[in-house]
């Protein structure tokens, strides 16, 4: 679980934040509701999760709420990994 959190957080920081951004992003930091990841960009995050973890996330489960923190994303991914 911790490894998965680390992978997702690293991707978010690399893809959605600039090098000199002051934002401190942690596992429980809001991503969608803070505007770090907007609703359109959620698609690329979803694709990343599907490719990386070899799962399929149904559209009706890939909601802004489910994607709002690294923690909540891990819950969703684990569900589809059958954990």
């Amino acid at each position, binding site marked *: 679980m911790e490894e998965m959190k680390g992978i997702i957080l690293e991707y978010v920081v690399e893809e959605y934040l600039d090098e000199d951004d002051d934002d401190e992003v942690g596992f429980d930091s809001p*991503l969608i*509701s803070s*505007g770090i990841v907007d*609703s359109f960009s959620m*698609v690329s995050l979803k694709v990343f999760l599907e490719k990386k973890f070899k799962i399929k996330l149904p559209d009706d489960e890939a*909601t*802004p709420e489910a994607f709002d923190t690294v923690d909540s994303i891990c819950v969703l991914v684990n569900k589809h990994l059958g954990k």
Partner: protein
Amino acid sequence: MSNIGSYDERLEGFDWNIARDVLDLRDDELLNIGHMASDRICKRGMGGKTALIWEGFGDAKKQYTFDELRVLSNGFAKKLQDAGVKPGDRVCVFMDKIPALYISFLGILKMGGVAQPLFSAFGDDSLEVRLKSAGTKAVLTTQKHVKKVRKIRQNLPELEHVIVVEGKPEKLKDGEVFFDVEKESPVQEFECFVSDEDTPSVLHYTSGTTGQPKGAQHAHGSVLGQALTASWVLDLQDEDIYWCTADPGWVTGTSYGIIGPWVLGVTQCVLDQGFTSARWYKFIQDNAITVWYSAPTAIRSLMRDGTKLVKQYDMAALRHLCSVGEPLNAEAVVWSEEAFGKPFLDTFWQTETGSMMITNYPGMKVKPGSMGKPFPGITAAVLDLKTNEPLTEPGQVGLIAFRPGWPSMFREYRNQHDVYASKFVGAAADAKPEDLRNDQDLWYVSGDRASIDQDGYYWFVGRDDDVINTGGHLVGPFEIESALIEHEAIAEAAVVGKPDEVNMEVVKAFVTLNEGFVFDDMLELGVMNFIRKSLSPLAMPQEIEVMEKLPKTRSGKILRRYLKALEWGEDVGDLSTLEDD
């Protein structure tokens, strides 16, 4: 009682001067939007009234009265003037929906500048194209977004001033100036630029099928159309608390997210936070919002979370709902009645029209799924696709067109007169813009298709070109295709809209690869992120399909319409010009 009263009665003997009556505007008063939205409201005794209620991330909240709006916008106006910005110069506002965006917008107009708001999610390529086209003299931005300006500044010789209005001053680089208007000495008095109805005011960029985005130039006279439609369609009244969810980087966010409500002296709310249904409902509840102007994409997202969630919040204050950006489907209208006890009323207009053109009205029967009827004073028609003559039989599909001359009509496409002239059926290519927009024998063609039913209601059919409407925002395929081939793996690209349940359309790209590249999951993701960062999240392809070769005409032109027809399951039409099968 609604402001419009009876739609049918308003049609009789309509004269746009009624907008002056609604504003109580004398002929000798200054027609400057910045002045009218702040100074004038104070002069009318409403300086102490709340103008803006703003909420941001992390429970941040701010409120401003009209008098504070007046003084702070004076501050921006003076700052720009002192810096050497002259009337007519383009000043870009590039920031999130923070208070400084709204206040500086008025300040630019007060000193005679042309406000050029740009969507803060634009990447550096999108930003560069628009700043270069506009010959922008100054950019107002924030520490968060100035990085994108830095990347392209060396390509923008006309850009003289980069003013950072929020963040840490110590983070600035050479050539950038920090200016937090709220920490500066208040500027109590500022002599506004004496503008008239044809003085340039706002420059909004909009996408077309071919070429780069076009700058639709508006003028201060637009305020008459914006005020009257805000009064009659949005039904804004003195005691209302109004929320327009649009970003001022797009025309709705300025026409009805700044100008319309404030020149009428109405309190408006802004939520600068990412979308979640619960957050939106809480915002409406906490601020007792009475009038709400939103977009079908947002409404459909709310629908996905169901009515159960809505019922957890107190929505009792809401009295009037409107929608804009793309056609509002009948299901969404029916759902809003179930969820909020009232329907969303669809409104149709576009960047170029500056104000609402075909809409539904308070008190007029709503036909779910219909665009409504033309605003009083607007002569509309659907034109035959071949002859360009108005269709007279109900149900026939044609091009939505308007007789030119309404107050909010755009004055020009910046530096693209030929494209402007091409929007008027039957116009001479060398006709002057002022002649085109006043010639009642011409039709201005919107680029959308519709039909009219036996009761005079308009029904949207679709775009007449390849422009993609995603989440209510127009995205030009050419701009994305140009960016795609900048990626090292992409040889050729064609971009079309793909049907989407929530956003109406999303971007789909068909590509061929350069030698040596293998398309796999990570390359697909890499290309998506490449476009997201260089253009914007809206332009990012949601799906990428690799082809051996793209379908082309014998003359080598990529057949976008063929790909689009395949995506939409439509007849692919005449393929006789296809390069090969």
